[in-house]
């Protein structure tokens, strides 16, 4: 047995390159699978525990004022366990010369005594003094400011104030600042009052029997108690202007998104792992095939099948143990970094990156078992031959029954030789074509989805026919606005849109959430909505509304044709949903000008002025000049955004998710490439003698290299053709899945995207084919005629 084991070990490393390629393939496959599996576990666990640690509020209300009476009333209200007063204002912060970004400013009474939606100190002070502010860690990049820097903020009256940053905090309950291009800052109540700011918010956690989290964060229960609370406040003379209850209370807004993305990644990484196992199986198959005659001789001298099989299985088991151990170490080493990097996309950090023992156990079992099963069959097949069959084994299918592909006349004899050589080993060809084709189809699917996402985003942005818009609380008369705009040089066209907000009221009278109301003017030319269902607004519409696709994500029970009730400025109004449009901003309700004038009280109206600009220079310069000119005309800008900002925000939302998928796909392609390289090594080694003969006949180095490369390219091209066929259904599925996962709306399947993906994959396939054959082609070309002819 010892001798047999030694022989099996030597057989494995007879061709070191082939062994290394195959081992690398299984190593990368096993590592990718481990990495993603461990990440899934850590992120799923940490998103819950880290978020839980901030003690998220059940809901949040905005009221016209907060006074001692309100505090007393709330304390006495049965349904609320704890509550906290906060102030919130949406302002602007200067980030450059004439460059402003949205600032969400929060005032907290005592930072260290926060009981819910807790923020944590990262650096510097945690209790800002007068004229000081804390900045959210993710917003540091947006504001390009840190501790010691001064934020210049623009108040609602147009005046500016300064805030010195004294600390950096983490607030994971908010959307990541970078994804929304927004700065979050925190001030004391003293500063709030000195700057004349208001914004009264009450965060609260509802009571639950036994304080169970299920009840604290039961959305139905929260809505019910919140409505009772609102009713009580309104009965006591307070006006509630906003109610916020998350779609998934108590859970991070990113949890489902992460879980879906990681689940998909896990599928991809498992496929990569399976590819590694298949390549390993191919290696074993080629080793056994090369040793078949020797196995016959061993049997002839008395070695029994079980012992020979046992020796090979033992060698491969040791190798698999080694690759599993290495991949386990690598996965464990990298998982902390990867989990942190992925969680940082949601502005979160894992507190604990340990992997539970049971998962290690399951992973090891799978990482050992699957490759061993893959090894078992080729070993049994090769070792199971009779002595006679084994001794007379030639390995290569030399009969005329071999697969025949059309052989174009223009192909040279050497290329023809490559073509036929590729078909000599049908199972090996099948393995390579299968791995590369599946990798290709998955690649095409992901890239098609990526291009479709970009196209969808770009098409959606194109539906907005303005270059710049700003919000102002001044409601301008038409003539007045015309005069102002005539004095702003770059303005080529403008429209005055209405803006407000309304609270959705369910049929049972319960207030649910607030939504932005947007009202384009009659005959607006600055919107060509991308309708997903139903129709767009007409000038004659009044209580007909169109909702953005995100509305249905929050309110899935509504559909086109349904009645929808809104509370706007204290008034309850019924509307009919006539259409749904794609809009990547926040969930919004679109109302005709008639409806806006009829149902939105003047006091609740804001103007959103949309401009078409003449770009006689750099876009950024024109935006700046327009801001300045508007300011000179006395316009008070509350918020502003250029189309470039919208574009950057939209692209930034999805870029990292897509890059992560692309990374895993690259792993898949690399593993397949290693598989092809290992195969080319085997194929070339098997043909060493043939190569020697050709050299003896005068074939030069280039011709030999070309023969090897052609074979590799041929396998790549066959797999490309198969991936073209497989890529269509997979891309349709990918576009659907990615659309819903990444942009929460089905993407339009575009043939152009698919074609572009095929072309990219074709180039990549050629590159993989060339690289896979490069070293063995060189080796074959460099081998002397004598050595080639003497090769056994």
């Amino acid at each position, binding site marked *: 047995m010892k001798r047999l084991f030694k022989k099996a070990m030597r057989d494995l490393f007879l061709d070191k390159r082939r062994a290394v390629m195959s081992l690398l393939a299984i190593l990368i496959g096993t590592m990718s699978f481990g990495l993603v599996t461990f990440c899934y576990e850590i992120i799923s666990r940490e998103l819950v525990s880290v978020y839980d640690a901030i003690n998220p509020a059940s809901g949040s209300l905005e009221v016209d004022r907060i006074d001692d009476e309100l505090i007393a009333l709330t304390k006495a209200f049965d349904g609320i366990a704890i509550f906290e007063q906060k102030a919130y204002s949406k302002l602007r912060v200067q980030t450059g010369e004439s460059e402003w970004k949205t600032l969400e400013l929060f005032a907290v009474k005592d930072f260290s005594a926060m009981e819910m939606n807790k923020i944590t100190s990262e650096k510097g002070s945690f209790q800002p003094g007068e004229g000081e502010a804390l900045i959210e860690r993710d917003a540091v990049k947006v504001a390009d400011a840190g501790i010691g820097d001064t934020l210049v903020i623009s108040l609602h009256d147009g005046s500016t104030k300064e805030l010195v940053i004294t600390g950096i905090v983490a607030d994971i309950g908010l959307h990541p600042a970078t994804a929304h291009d927004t700065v979050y800052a925190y001030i004391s109540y003293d500063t709030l009052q000195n700057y004349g700011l208001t914004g009264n918010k009450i965060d609260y956690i509802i009571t639950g029997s036994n304080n169970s989290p299920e009840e604290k964060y039961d959305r139905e229960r929260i809505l019910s108690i919140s409505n009772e609370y609102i009713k009580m406040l309104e009965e006591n003379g307070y006006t509630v202007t906003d109610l916020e209850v998350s779609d998934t209370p108590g859970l991070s807004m990113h949890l489902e998104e992460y879980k879906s993305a990681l689940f998909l990644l896990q599928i991809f990484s498992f496929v990569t792992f399976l590819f590694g196992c298949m390549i390993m199986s191919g290696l074993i198959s080629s080793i056994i095939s090369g040793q078949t005659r020797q196995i016959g001789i061993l049997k002839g001298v008395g070695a029994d099948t079980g012992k020979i099989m046992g020796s090979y299985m033992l060698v491969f088991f040791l190798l698999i143990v080694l690759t599993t151990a290495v991949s386990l170490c690598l996965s464990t080493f990298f998982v902390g970094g990867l989990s942190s990097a992925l969680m940082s996309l949601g502005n979160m950090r894992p507190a604990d990156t340990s992997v539970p023992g049971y998962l290690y156990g399951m992973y090891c079992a799978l990482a050992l078992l699957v490759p061993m099963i893959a090894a078992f069959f080729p070993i049994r097949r090769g070792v199971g031959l009779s002595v006679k069959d084994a001794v007379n084994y030639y390995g290569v299918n030399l009969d005329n029954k071999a697969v025949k592909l059309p052989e174009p006349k223009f192909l040279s004899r050497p290329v023809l030789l490559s073509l036929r050589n590729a078909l000599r080993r049908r199972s090996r060809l099948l393995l390579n074509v299968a791995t590369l084709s599946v990798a290709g189809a998955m690649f095409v699917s992901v890239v098609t989805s990526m291009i479709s996402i970009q196209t969808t985003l770009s098409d959606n942005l194109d539906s907005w026919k303005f270059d710049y818009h700003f919000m102002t609380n001044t409601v301008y008369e038409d003539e007045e606005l015309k005069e102002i705009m005539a004095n702003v040089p770059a303005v080529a066209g403008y429209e005055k849109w209405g803006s407000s907000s309304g609270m959705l009221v369910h049929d049972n009278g319960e207030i649910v959430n607030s939504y932005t109301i947007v009202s384009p003017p009659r005959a607006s030319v600055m919107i060509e909505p991308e309708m997903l269902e139903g129709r767009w607004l007409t000038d004659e519409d009044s209580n007909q509304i169109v909702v953005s696709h995100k509305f249905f994500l929050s309110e899935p029970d509504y559909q086109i044709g349904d009645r929808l009730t809104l509370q706007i400025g204290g008034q309850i109004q019924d509307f009919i949903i006539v259409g749904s449009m794609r809009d990547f901003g926040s969930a919004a309700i679109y109302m005709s000008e008639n409806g806006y004038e009829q149902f939105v009280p003047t006091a609740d109206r804001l103007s959103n002025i949309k401009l078409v600009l003449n770009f006689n220079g750099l876009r950024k310069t024109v935006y700046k000049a327009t801001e300045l000119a508007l300011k000179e005309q006395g316009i008070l800008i509350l918020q502003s955004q250029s189309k470039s900002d919208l574009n950057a925000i939209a692209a930034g939302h999805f870029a990292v998710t897509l890059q992560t998928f692309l990374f895993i796909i690259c792993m898949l392609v690399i593993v397949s490439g290693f598989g092809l390289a290992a195969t080319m090594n085997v194929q070339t080694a098997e043909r060493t003698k043939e190569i020697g003969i*050709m050299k003896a*006949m005068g074939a030069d*180095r280039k011709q030999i290299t070309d023969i090897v490369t052609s074979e590799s390219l041929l396998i790549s091209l066959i797999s490309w053709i198969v991936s073209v066929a497989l890529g269509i259904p997979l891309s349709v599925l990918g576009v659907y899945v990615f659309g819903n996962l990444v942009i929460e709306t089905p993407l339009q399947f575009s043939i152009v995207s698919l074609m572009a993906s095929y072309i990219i994959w074709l180039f990549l396939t050629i590159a993989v084919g060339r690289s896979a054959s490069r070293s063995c082609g060189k080796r074959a070309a460099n081998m002397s005629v004598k050595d080639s002819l003497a090769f056994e």
Partner: protein
Amino acid sequence: MIQFRNVNKIYRTGANDYPVLKNVSFGIEKGEYVIITGKSGSGKSTLLNILTGVDNASSGDVMVNGTNILRLDEAQMTRWRGENVGIVFQFFQLIPTLSVLENILLPMDLMNRIPQGKRMERAKELLAMVGLSGHAGKMPSALSGGEQQRVAIARAIANNVELIVADEPTGNLDTKNAEMIFDILSELNKSGKTIVMVTHEKDTMKGASRKIIVKDGEVLEDYLLKGGCVQ
């Protein structure tokens, strides 16, 4: 045509040097049919390998038609071999995935000396010459050993080379097939080809004009033959 001058070949291992050829010198004229014979390990195959450029000599010169082939680099040697030498191997060494006809076409494709349009015609002529016209489309595995060796000879002369070097071409064949191979080589010699053949065969030297006996790396005897019999 061929001049071996003081050719030495020494195999160097870690501890010892093994001289395989010792100061070998001889010449072969154009049109000769030379048989090199000797016991196993005598150095005859090494001699042949040096003549075909498959192996290098440790010292000395091998002049073939005025070219010192030991001074050629690898690329030049490959080109020179393809243009000047046809090799016939003991184990036929046909390419198993190419048909009989394609095996003969392959050296023409590799060297590109014969115009594309004339290659097929020439391949068929060569196949007819070795008596295998009816086997053109067959794969080598479908042929007997003797037939495969005849294809190998046709392949060796595909590029119309002057020198044919055969390394024990009948070593794997029965007497009848060996006879046929000698007949073909003899016919080729009569048509002007120079033939250098290493063989173990003691009796059958039909058509050969000269015999060189190698022993322990040296030319032991070198003499002319007449009518294929020992003179």
